[in-house]
């Protein structure tokens, strides 16, 4: 199932800098996109979402951008903090409620 793809398995950034995590999708029927983060031994925790009718949603240090024509979304974290180190999953939803997940990107924020 390649409908949602996160091409970077890992990303390393310095504390205080911007982290940009990317996600591509192929299914044009997706109407909602979500980012989850996951710490070891915990379940995915909801972070931020965006409707397909928007191109940007911001919540504190986290901003999600959606480019529908490119079928691409990105999560920006500014400024990055060591506590942000986790696996970040992009997920997408069709008109039903099942989520389709990407592979995840391991973010490491170095002090």
């Amino acid at each position, binding site marked *: *199932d390649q409908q949602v793809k996160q091409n970077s398995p890992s990303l390393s950034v310095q504390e205080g800098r911007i982290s940009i995590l990317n996600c591509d999708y192929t299914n044009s029927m997706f109407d*909602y996109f*979500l980012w*989850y983060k996951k710490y070891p*031994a*915990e*379940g*995915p*925790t*909801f972070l931020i*979402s965006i*409707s397909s009718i928007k191109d940007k949603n911001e919540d504190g240090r986290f901003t999600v951008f959606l480019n529908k024509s490119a079928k691409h979304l990105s999560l920006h974290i500014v400024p990055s903090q060591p506590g942000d180190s986790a696996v970040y*999953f992009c*997920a997408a*939803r069709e*008109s*039903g*409620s*099942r*989520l*389709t*997940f*990407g*592979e*995840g990107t391991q973010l490491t924020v170095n002090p």
Partner: protein
Amino acid sequence: EPEVTQTPSHQVTQMGQEVILRCVPISNHLYFYWYRQILGQKVEFLVSFYNNEISEKSEIFDDQFSVERPDGSNFTLKIRSTKLEDSAMYFCASTRTGGGSKNIQYFGAGTRLSVL
């Protein structure tokens, strides 16, 4: 803060045995889900459940799997005769609504199932 609770955290079983994974969703949530993640692979949808019946299931969710909410509190996933390839982390999730912007699925910490 309300959370989804899953038990046990780790289940070890012999191939061919039945297992039941348990979940207590957030109390005012109405939609319930099971997902699984095989080591090194993506999180995959298994099944969604609403109003005491399955609303959607994936091709993974075959006759070996079943779900129920026996007492209005627990939401269970049963695997009738486990196979080696059922070894995975199983996540339960719940949400208040089935769609729209309020459909944010909240996940439990997962049950690691090891089939020997």
